[in-house]
């Protein structure tokens, strides 16, 4: 099963992410986002962070989840490659995110992501898939 795929957008990049559960689709959306930022094959799992986010609804939760992870990249230059979502509700999720600090000698960065946006953001509960457009 495909974890995610990119969708065309003139100035930015869109992403569809899939899962057997909605939590898995959220995790795959995060993986998709970091695959825009860096070549993830070379990113190990030396570091992990527990990330907890809350929002008023499920769409807000997706927005908040992805943008929280960008914060870690900006502040700690952490690249995440694997996401274990341990608790998942409509308005709250807890995840343990595994990755590594960016090291220019081993990692290849690709494209900067400024933010996830609400534009065309969609959470499809029936099919366990989500759509998000990033500001690049």
């Amino acid at each position, binding site marked *: 099963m495909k974890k995610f795929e990119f969708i065309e957008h003139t100035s930015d990049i869109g992403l569809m992410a899939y899962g057997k559960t909605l939590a898995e689709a959220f995790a795959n959306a995060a993986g998709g986002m970091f695959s825009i930022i860096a070549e993830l094959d070379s990113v190990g799992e030396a570091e992990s962070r527990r990330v907890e986010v809350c929002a008023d609804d499920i769409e807000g939760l997706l927005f908040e989840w992805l943008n929280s992870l960008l*914060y870690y990249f900006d502040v700690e*230059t952490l690249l995440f490659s694997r996401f274990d979502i341990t608790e998942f509700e409509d308005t709250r999720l807890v995840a343990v995110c595994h990755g590594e600090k960016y090291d*220019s000698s081993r990692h290849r*960065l690709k*494209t900067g992501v*400024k*933010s996830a946006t*609400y534009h*065309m953001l969609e959470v499809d509960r029936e099919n366990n898939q989500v759509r998000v457009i990033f*500001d690049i």
Partner: protein
Amino acid sequence: MPKWEGKLEKVDEFRWRIPKDYKKGMRVPGLIYADEGMIRQVIDDQAPEQVANVAFLPGIVGSSLAMPDIHWGYGFAIGGVAAMRVSDGVVSPGGVGFDINCGVRIMRTNLTREEVTPKIKELIDALFYAVPSGLGSKGKIKLRSGEIDEVLIKGSRWAVERGYGRPEDLETTEESGEIKGTDPQRVSGRAKERGIPQLGTLGSGNHFLEVAVVDEIYEPEAAEVMGMNRVGQVMLYVHCGSRGLGHQVADDYIKEMVRAMPKYGIEVPDRQLACVPVDSPEGKNYLGAMRCAANYAWANRQCITHWVREAFCRVMGMSESDAGLQLIYDVTHNIAKIEDHEVGGKKEKLCVHRKGATRAFPAGHPDIPQKYLKIGQPILIPGDMGRASYVLVGTEQAMKETFGSTCHGAGRLRSRSAMKKQLSGRDVLAALEARGITIRAGSMSGLAEEAPEAYKDVGDVVRVAHGAGISKKVARTRPIAVVKG
């Protein structure tokens, strides 16, 4: 994305209207600046739908405007201008964008192409090392604890006081690089944490440093006032924004506004248009925080300017004054500002959102530098890496029609993934080198995404802005070397 098939009426050679009755809920019509050729590109994606959606927002006056570099964004189209009454209208963080006060500045020099070209490789390397750029780069400025708040309040002035640049740089920066009405307490801890290590960095994406050469002057008098004296003269551009700090401020307030909208009975066709009354507590908090991010961006460009000057003088072996490195002007193209404009013959306070649009105030306007009072505010329109950039001035027509606004750049035409499928970064590098343009880039794939072919021809964009009278062409420059973030 499907072609847009909405209602569009041709007004004249440069103007297209989306009538108010196209969608129920539009409060004003949409107005797109484009010629016959460009409008076909514009309706190729959903940008016009975004222009129509912005017309839903409470308190919007005139039209929901789209400049000729319009392209599909998120929420607002890029190249969008929307003015809302302060009395009963809204402010929308989506109408500013995530990169608050992304903007561009241009410096003049006394040097000619012939003098700089022999050292161009050395120069571009020096610029590349002087200015941290690219994804994951960290700045070299160490802030004292709490000093970030000073950056947010004073903007460029903070930088000049710290020794980055000269006091006269402030006179030729929009808002003097220090927009008033800031409220650093409204900037979250997360935003500050993101901003502190990134101060004095260029970032990635379409941000750049450019060494350019004047290749045509259309208005010699205005050009002379700006210190653009002759064809062949070397100019330096800096294009960047507010980095992670601005992105976090936008995130924080979009969230807050989504939450607050029901309280004010506001409904929007796209959540990314989330907005609240300008005069509400949430609206004031956003404007206070947004202005902080704007000042951060001005401080950022000011620090970078200083390093660009140092590197340039070192490589050319001359002093700053011999090199004649004066800042011509600095404009922001992602911002919301409270301005006075005439609406229906009456002066009105408006919140003007410019998202990928530049202020274009005319000669005699009190908000432009003394130096430019007779010619109008300089406007900087960077094009892609391979073609050209333009310097324009603001006009009365812009005041009448577009709330003193015009275009901001070339405007994207093709998606990033489409470009990467077509070209590799190495192809782009080779093609540019063959045209005599030296490139230093942080990322090769980033280079492919930013290839000249990804953009509209900035010459077409400027022709429409000039033809419609919302700004006037002064000069054109061509790149000879570019540092891409």
